[in-house]
């Protein structure tokens, strides 16, 4: 079956995030007070054909570890759900 997958890649705790820090510093000048803890990551979306949800999860976990993230500095969070079948 087909799954829609979203992988969110973010810097691991303790790894400096200069982009997040820069955005956070800029916010007060734009009038946005009270915003803290800004962090910048990326999200990667794709479709995956797999036998079932646990098989899909195993593939995506492996993909994240070997390619989509650098485990030295990045973590990932996977969300996947069965793709909606397009009406024909």
């Amino acid at each position, binding site marked *: 079956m087909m799954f829609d997958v979203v992988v969110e890649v973010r810097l691991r705790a303790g790894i*400096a995030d*200069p982009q997040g820090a820069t955005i956070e510093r800029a916010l007060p000048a734009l009038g946005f007070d009270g915003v803290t803890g800004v962090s910048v990551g990326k999200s990667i979306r794709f479709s995956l054909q797999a036998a079932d949800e646990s098989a899909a999860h195993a593939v995506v976990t492996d993909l994240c570890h070997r390619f989509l993230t650098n485990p*030295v500095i990045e973590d990932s969070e996977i969300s996947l759900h069965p793709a909606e079948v397009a009406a024909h």
Partner: protein
Amino acid sequence: MATNVAVIRFPGTNCEFDVVEVVQQLGAQAQIVFHDEPSLGNADAVVIAGGFAHGDYLRPGAIARFSPVMEAVASFAQSGGPVVGICNGFQVLTEAHLLPGALQKNAGLKFRCGFTNLRVESSNSVLTSEAQVGDILSIPINHFEGNYTCSSETLAELQGEDRVLFRYVTNPNGSVDDIAGICNEGRNVVGLMPHPERACHDLLGSRDGIVLMSSLLRAAGLNAGVPT
């Protein structure tokens, strides 16, 4: 037989000709090896040149490490052959797990381009054998993602095993422990962010890279006197 250096080119590599020029200036031969080649030919040393392999998409080096040529580079490294990754080449070597750690965006999000002073911390490697510990070398940097980072365990290993080869005199990018270059356990795989190949001629403002490039050629078997 002439000493032969394989200079790896990915789509987006842009420092390969600088490396070839210096290798030839120092009396050895160089050939450019494209990323889809499964073999390094009769190479005595490998240089992974700088640039933006595969556009640095996803992460610098992340896609390049899966190139066919990288399997050949890994076996060459495992057999003890000298391998040097410069700038983007350093990033490729970390992504390929031939060197530990990672290079992340510079502290302060500044693209750093200019001469920097490096202190040689170990002369026990294929790139530093002809240098002296404590030498200060003026070598240019040119990078956005040169902020070396690693786990505290890895850092302790690098320090304890004398594998930090270069430190910045003034840290330009936030690298942990001012690290500019490291080597593997076998001391035959070296990665550094600065560009020694761009500091080998008076016209370029420094000749301090010659001692490093000639160390590499010596490790590759070039015995003839290196012109200085």
